[in-house]
């Protein structure tokens, strides 16, 4: 009969309306600033730089190879290589970035910089509440703002950080293994 | 000037405006608007005479206006339908262009 569907629909909405008062489970809204949903582990937003140890300047893994700068599709990364060198995580002398800027207003969160980085130095952050009233300076992040500890990396992406650390340890072990026979030879020669 | 004279003067001026418009404007729709104005001028006369004349309890003037409004509505509907039908053929509403029957 004409109008049957309308009555059914009205009953459905009425049930939803009344149900939302009786059954709090129905309300799917998470009232954001007070409560928040847990983020997925693979969540990503903008890149940051990892450093080992306590000193951001000394422990920065980045060697200013500028691959990410070249690969970045929107070209939001700006790197200036240092004149001098400092030892990296395996003790080899490397350049380091004197300037490392990311313009997050341009960044499109594509994660290509992370994928191309051979030194596991750049990773994606999960921080998303980044609003600022300064749309030029406030969104241009310098090296100091970008540098974050490895522990922080572990706290936001535990699985991925674990894998990265395992890889780094492996490399370190390889270097050490290479160094050992050399040392032994040296000793033998001596 | 009595109120009745005032009404009648307004009405005749309205009639003259409608007539002048209907004669000078060349859009068929504007001609129709002019005709509507003339019709309404006549209606005003009826109401004025009903108001100030004798035998107002018979409501003759008022009922005439009621019928006249109904006729005007029908006239507008048919007139505009005619204009649209003509426009569909000639792509114009200029009354001067509608001269197909001129020998």
């Amino acid at each position: 009969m004409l109008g049957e569907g309308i009555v059914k629909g009205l009953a459905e909405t009425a049930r939803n309306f009344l149900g939302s008062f009786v059954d709090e489970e129905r309300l799917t809204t998470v009232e954001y600033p007070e409560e928040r949903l847990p983020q997925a582990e693979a969540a990503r937003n903008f890149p940051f730089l990892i450093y080992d140890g306590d000193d951001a300047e000394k422990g920065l893994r980045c060697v200013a190879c500028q691959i990410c700068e070249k690969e970045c599709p929107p070209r939001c990364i700006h790197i200036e290589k240092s004149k001098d060198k400092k030892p990296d995580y395996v003790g080899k002398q490397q350049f380091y970035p004197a300037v490392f800027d990311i313009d997050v207003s341009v960044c499109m969160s594509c994660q290509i910089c992370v994928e191309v980085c051979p030194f596991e130095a750049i990773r994606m952050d999960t921080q998303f509440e980044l609003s600022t009233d300064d749309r030029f300076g406030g969104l241009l992040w310098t090296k100091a703002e970008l540098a974050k500890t490895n522990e922080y990396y572990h706290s936001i992406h535990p699985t991925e950080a674990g894998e990265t650390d395992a890889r780094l340890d492996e490399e370190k072990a390889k270097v050490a293994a290479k160094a050992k026979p050399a040392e032994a030879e040296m000793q033998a020669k001596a | 000037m009595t109120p009745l004279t005032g009404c009648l003067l307004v009405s005749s001026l309205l009639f003259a405006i409608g007539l002048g418009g209907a004669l000078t404007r060349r859009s068929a729709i504007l001609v129709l608007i002019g005709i509507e104005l003339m019709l309404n001028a006549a209606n005003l006369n009826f109401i004025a005479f009903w108001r100030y004349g004798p035998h107002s309890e018979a409501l003759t003037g008022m009922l005439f206006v009621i019928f006249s409004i109904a006729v005007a509505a029908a006239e507008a509907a048919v007139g505009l339908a005619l204009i649209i039908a003509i426009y569909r053929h000639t792509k114009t509403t200029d009354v001067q262009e509608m001269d197909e029957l001129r020998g």
Partner: protein
Amino acid sequence: MTQAPVQQLDQIFVMLKHWLVGYVPAAAQPVVSSLLSVVAILALFPALFAFTTVLERKGLGRMQNRYGPNRVGPFGLLQPLADGIKSLTKEDVVPRTADKAVHFMAPLLLVAASFLAYAVLPVGRNMAAVNLDAGVLYFFAVGAVAELAVFMAGWSSHNKYSLLGAMRAIAQMISYEVPLILSSLAVIMAAGSLSTVEIAGRQAGYSGIWPHWYVLTPWGLAGFLLFMIAATAETNRSPFDLPEGESEIIAGYYTEYSGFKFALFFLGEYLGMFAISGLGITLFLGGWSAPFSFLTWIPSWIWFFAKLLALIAVFIWMRGTLPRLRMDQLMNFAWKFMLPMALLVMVSAGVWRFLPHGVLRWIVCFVMIAVPYVLLGRGLLQGKKIGKRTYRFAE
């Protein structure tokens, strides 16, 4: 003894007005008296509008299993204030090619016409601003001006979506005005008067505990439903919101309006909804009279506004439930269903009037409406227009 204070409470606003008018010289009294009524209308109904916007957003939210606005003030009740400040401080953009004067006048005309309609609504016993002899006619005449305002808005914006919206709005309003007026004509016939005050007064009696509302007759119920459907279309409310269908033509005739003019359109639309609900209450739901004879001690104006809020809730409920119609469905529904049913309701009201009291006239009137309804509904559903939907895909 208890009767007196109850009556005083019922007439409290009337007495207040008399008391205030008593302070001005006799020559100015009619002017002051009508000014007071106007001020009351101008203050009350926009406030109701503000309240309704929150109510609507919260109600719709609950129907969709979410909260709705709850941040500004307690329970989000100050939301309209925030909205008002927002729309007042926004830039007023007028398109360069717009017809400036008409563009400016359209929202004003719409709001003015919507306000004028309240003059004849009796919001309580002895509480109509004017008791016009042709009150219902006045109401519809003023409503007709709103159509023109909508056209002016759509045409002057010089925007294809605005014009489309205006054309749709006018076509829809004209089509649905026919069943709207025809269904109220049944009540006018039954009451024997065009005066809203008189019609409300006619329904104030009681048989046993039941009131003499016209909605409590078979033709009255059908007429009321037809009236409310037509009223929904007349005020461009969902599911008849084609003139402003966001997903199709942006905002229809007020696409090119911003800032406070946009708010005025919003105000006009809601005022129109309240006014036509008020007329529906006056015509079918007994105006200010109580639904049961033992509830008459509650002041009449409380009853009117309770009914008004209930009808607004129904409007919100429908908006939360029904999807928008297609243009051809809209027109088919108006001319192939609403119009014949409205005519039948009129005939049925006449039959009701001349049959003797008793079960017989209930049965006759009910059959007169129910049978054509079922047949008409079946015919419409079997037709290809509202049939089961078939999908065609590009090969």
